């Protein structure tokens, strides 16, 4: 993007700014997603969802409660009544007693949630929200003055490989946490999760291989741009199928309904995090939601056109139009939000698969289908 080579210091400072921006994005979107989950599920299920923080009448939360309650009288705005709930959630996770079971493996027990969390967050280093500069720092700014603030942290030429590699570390957090708990239900949950995530990583990777084959690059920005604007019409049905396959695997990777085997609250109490409490549980919880964002971001970037408006490679027909022709970070974020909504919507609609059935879905259906898609993608690429 920027032809002028940066000094090491400039690179570091820029990366730190961008990392901060991404972390802020994550920690705004994740609590909002948990709030949205309450509300969307609520409206799915003919109830209101969160409307206040229970019992708080005084202090800051009391003030929030009172005002939120008043807000409930306004049309439309009443939907976000209960918004302070997400602050309440965070406060609760932070101040809950943190219990480490006596017989647990202390070190592993502590490392595991961190591992899950780190794996989820580091992935964002390679995800590109916007292929160009969002704004330029003013000249007067120290060190990075005059440099563009890009919509991605690094522009790796193996971006996708990095994302997949790091994301697969997350399963260690779950398995180690389950093992370290030294308890039976977490053990079962951990084993299930290990088998499930390893199985689903195969079709997940294969379904992303089709875009790689179509574009011939692993660079995140190039892939997004080419997929959105340079695909032949024959590739579009492939992208639609690929999107559905990827999303299915994504549900399994993030342990969401209908594939929430590792947790499977009704069978395994709470699955791998049964023994976890306080912020350690919070880390697992956050990791799940961050993974949802990662999956949504990848699906958006490769199949839904990323920062370009139209999905599945249709954008090339409106590229010349003003306003909506160019890339815009708002489209990217809007599509992520839509996919997050889909996650919640599905949870409110369908029941849970059984463990062996999940494996059947992966090995009998998803892997053959993704292989076919990859093969067809290769044909398309060869023909084009």
């Amino acid at each position, binding site marked *: 993007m920027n032809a002028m080579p940066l000094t090491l210091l400039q690179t570091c400072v820029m990366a730190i700014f961008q990392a901060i921006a991404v972390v802020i994005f994550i920690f705004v979107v994740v609590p909002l997603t948990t709030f949205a989950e309450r509300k969307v599920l609520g409206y799915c299920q003919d109830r209101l969802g969160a409307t206040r923080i229970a019992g708080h009448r005084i202090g800051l939360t009391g003030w929030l409660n009172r005002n939120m309650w008043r807000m409930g009288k306004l049309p439309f705005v009443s939907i976000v009544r209960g918004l302070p709930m997400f602050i309440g959630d965070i406060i609760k996770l932070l101040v809950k007693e943190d219990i480490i079971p006596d017989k647990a493996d202390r070190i592993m027990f502590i490392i595991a949630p961190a591992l899950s969390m780190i794996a989820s967050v580091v992935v964002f280093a390679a995800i590109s929200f916007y292929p160009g500069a969002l704004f330029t720092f003013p000249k007067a700014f120290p060190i990075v003055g005059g440099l563009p603030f890009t919509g991605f942290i690094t522009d790796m030429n193996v971006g996708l490989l990095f994302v997949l590699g790091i994301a697969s570390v997350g399963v260690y957090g779950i398995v180690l946490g389950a093992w370290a708990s030294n308890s*039976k239900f977490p053990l079962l949950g951990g084993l299930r999760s290990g088998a499930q995530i390893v199985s689903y990583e195969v079709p997940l990777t294969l379904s992303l291989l089709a875009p790689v084959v179509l574009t011939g690059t692993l660079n995140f920005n190039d892939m997004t741009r080419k997929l959105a604007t340079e695909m032949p019409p024959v590739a579009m049905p492939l992208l639609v199928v690929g999107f559905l396959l990827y999303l299915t695997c994504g549900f399994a990777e993030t342990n969401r309904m209908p594939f929430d085997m590792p947790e499977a609250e009704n069978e395994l109490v709470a699955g791998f995090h049964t023994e976890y409490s306080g912020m350690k549980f919070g880390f697992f919880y956050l990791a799940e939601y961050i993974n949802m964002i990662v999956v949504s971001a990848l699906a958006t970037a490769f199949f839904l056109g990323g920062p370009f408006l139209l999905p599945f490679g249709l954008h090339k027909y409106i590229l010349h139009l003003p306003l909506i022709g160019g890339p815009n970070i708002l489209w990217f974020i809007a599509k992520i939000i839509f996919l997050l909504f889909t996650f919640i919507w599905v949870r409110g609609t*369908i029941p849970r698969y059984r463990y062996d059935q999940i494996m059947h879905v992966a090995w009998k259906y998803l892997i053959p289908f993704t292989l076919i898609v990859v093969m067809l993608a290769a044909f398309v690429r060869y023909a084009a």
Partner: protein
Amino acid sequence: MFKNEEMEINMGPQHPSTHGVLRLKLKLDGEIVTSCRPCIGYLHRGVEKICENKTFFQGQVWTDRMDYCSAVANNLGWAEAIEKLFGITVPRRARYIRTLLNEFNRLASHLIWLATHGLDIGAMTVFLYTFREREAILDIFEAFCGSRLTTTAFRIGGLREDLPPGFEKLVRNFLATFPDCMNEYETLLTENRIWKKRTIGVGMLRAEDAIAMGVTGPVLRAAGVPYDIRKAFPYAAYEEMDFEVPTRTEADTYARYLVRLEEMRQSARIIQQCMDGLPEGPVMAKLPKVLRSEVNEVYHATEAPKGELGYYLVGEKGSLNPYRFHVRAPGFINLQALPMMVEGNLVADVIATIGTLDVVLGEIDR
């Protein structure tokens, strides 16, 4: 280095989906259940013994608290058993109202079953939908007798009071919307691929095994045996009602699901008939102030939502309370079949099977 051994886990008494305080000792080979032993008694209150020390009039409040999801059905069995013991004839209007409330209770109980069964399998939304309709039913109970869960709805010899004003409107409103609500549940579940995968062929209990185990109710009917006490030994006003006993032959969890859904439709039909054909007249028989029993014994079976609910009462000469009281609780007997249904299946099927047996621990432990 690796030993191949079975893992023994305790599912319950504190577990999200053992429906109360049921404890299952499971032996697992990987995810496959090799042995399942239900342990009960965590909710034992000695209802039978307590009732032996209460007068015939007082015992009914304890029957509320056995199967707390179907208190009215328990009340009905108790009241009718005692009426049988003393040879009391209940006025026709009272019998109709009893039938009506009993069917509402069946709906409420089946709604709870659908809710928890769905929730166990992960269908969260249906849980809240069914509770919406159950709320309306509880309102009807409240309008009739003032309480919602532990109703103590009837009196020996009839009813304490006639229907309150506005009751008919409540019932008609409910009946008008209920078929749509049923369709709503069915849209979510009946043809849902995941729901079918989780329930078809799961927790099989063939008719001969079911009969050998003494299993009754929808579980037996889903195995193809059309045994329903409302038809076989009619009580209350069931003789005069026109309804069908739904049966299936698949004997699996999905068949039980379909049977119970059809039962709910039939219950709505019975309620409609009760409301339309409600006779005029008194609701209470003439009774002495104090009931003193003769040497006598009686077993009275009713079709509770979960199966055959039998009350066995022995009278003692001149006594104000029963000499012996025993309850044949359907949940208790049905639970016996659980090991047979789950051994050799997966852990996840245990949950589905507990759900489909529709156990309520208050009734099992008594």
